[in-house]
């Protein structure tokens, strides 16, 4: 079985950084954006940004499946 690529793991870490670890940077009311407090706006924005990051990771993983059919054989034995 294969492990995910480092690049695709890094793409997955971006939403964690944006949504979770950086909370003290964005947890405030001002500036209000589109009428929303900044923290609400920030998290709602990440509902769209997360699929973008994961789409990138998906392309990386799916591309690897398509490009190297023979590699799966050797990985399967790991």
């Amino acid at each position: 079985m294969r492990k995910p690529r480092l690049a695709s793991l890094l793409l997955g870490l971006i939403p964690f950084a944006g949504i979770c670890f950086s909370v003290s940077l964005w947890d405030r009311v001002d500036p209000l954006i589109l009428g929303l407090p900044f923290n609400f706006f920030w998290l709602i924005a990440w509902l769209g940004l997360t699929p973008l990051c994961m789409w990138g990771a998906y392309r990386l993983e799916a591309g690897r499946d398509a490009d190297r059919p023979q590699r799966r054989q050797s990985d399967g034995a790991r």
Partner: protein
Amino acid sequence: MSASALAVIFGIVAAGTCIGLYAGSRRKMDLEQWTVGGRDFGLPLVWLLMAGEVYTTFTFLGASGWAYSKGAPALYILAYQPLAYVVSFYILPRIWDLGREHRVQTLADFFQVRYRSKHLAALVAAVGVVFLIPYLQLQLTGLGIIVEVASFQGIGRTPAMLLAFALVAAFVYTSGVRGVAWVSVLKDLLMLFAAVFVGIAIPYIYFGGIGPMFAALAHAHPGHLVMPGATKSLGHAWYISTVLLSALGFYMWPHAFAASLTARSAGTLRRNAVILPLYSITVPLILFVGLGATLILPGLSNGDLSLLMLVRKTFPAWFLGLIGGAGALTAMVPAASLILAAATLFTKNIYRPLFAATMSDAQVATLAKVLVLVITAIALVFAIYSSTTLVSLLLLGYAGVAQFFPGVVLGLYWRRVTRRGVSAGLLAGMAVVAALMLGKHDPLPGINAGFVALCVNFAVTAAISCLSRTEPGGFAEPRGERGAATAD
């Protein structure tokens, strides 16, 4: 007035039950069909089944309830859902591959195959059943609240819960996971409508828009809109630890784990992981309703009532019925999959391997159906006699099921991990959860107690694994090529 609201609710519940019975009756039910739907669900059905896991009474009443009573800490709900899908991207496709190869039907099966230990599997199953019960209790309590509010306090919460759960049990008994999946269609459509309509209409009716509502809130309760909100202990450290615990624990729920095995291919799961975060877009709308209620209906003793009380105050009774009906399905459908998962775990991974090795699959299926009633009754008793908030119930469950994460993820990606390490880690995690939660030390200086337990669990698992002898893992010899599954 109350009669029309109740009539609409019961109409919706009846329609849902009929769909479930019809979907279930069209196929012959063996154990595999009943628990993982024959493993042939395509993208739309798996999407609904997995997305349906998120849309429970918890989101509907619990999220608005916490936004009402606690304020900004409720944002954690908006945060953990997309991150749970990110985590799933890296583990579910692989679990699915291995699951098909080794005929894994439950979370405990996974431990059994990977660590070659039926005792570890039984331990996992037992912990799973125990922590499914607060989640089930949450759904029951939610249903009770809906009928209570919709009947204008004419029907008590207890008879309401009894009635609704007789229906759920009957529904699970006859239809299994396929029935659950199809009722999810109705449930999700209604829920989407209810959340969008209420989340936009309430701010417009009372404040003239979402922007003006937040301007009013920022003026009246500025502290409510940032963490720790109306609480003292739910600050940023609590937020980070709770978001991590929930994101890692999300697919460790036995029912969610089993639902992912119903996919047709690993690629289906990967694509789902990419798009599902968009599905959480209704969560902020529900939070808006709870926040608005702090200005419109201040002083409610139980925040979990806020969404429905506000709908009752604002709209005609039939509309309250429509929202209540949507809410009732968001309790019943997840309740059905919770019951199904708990019953299957108990019979397949505890009772049969330890006490009745010769039982056939058919007998296991029968026993599972008897257990449906037992488990429902236990949760009902807890629901009647306890009075915690819906979110607290869910967090208790997460503290428990997240303890499976080290065993699953290390089992997938670290060859050195051993059965002893995982057992010791799981037991250590449980001990910490029990000590902190029963001793009322949650949150422990601003950090989620379940997350503390998870860290202890990881450390113990890794340390004991390094100290014990390497053992051959159950996935060591793959039987055949599975890569094709990801290509479609």
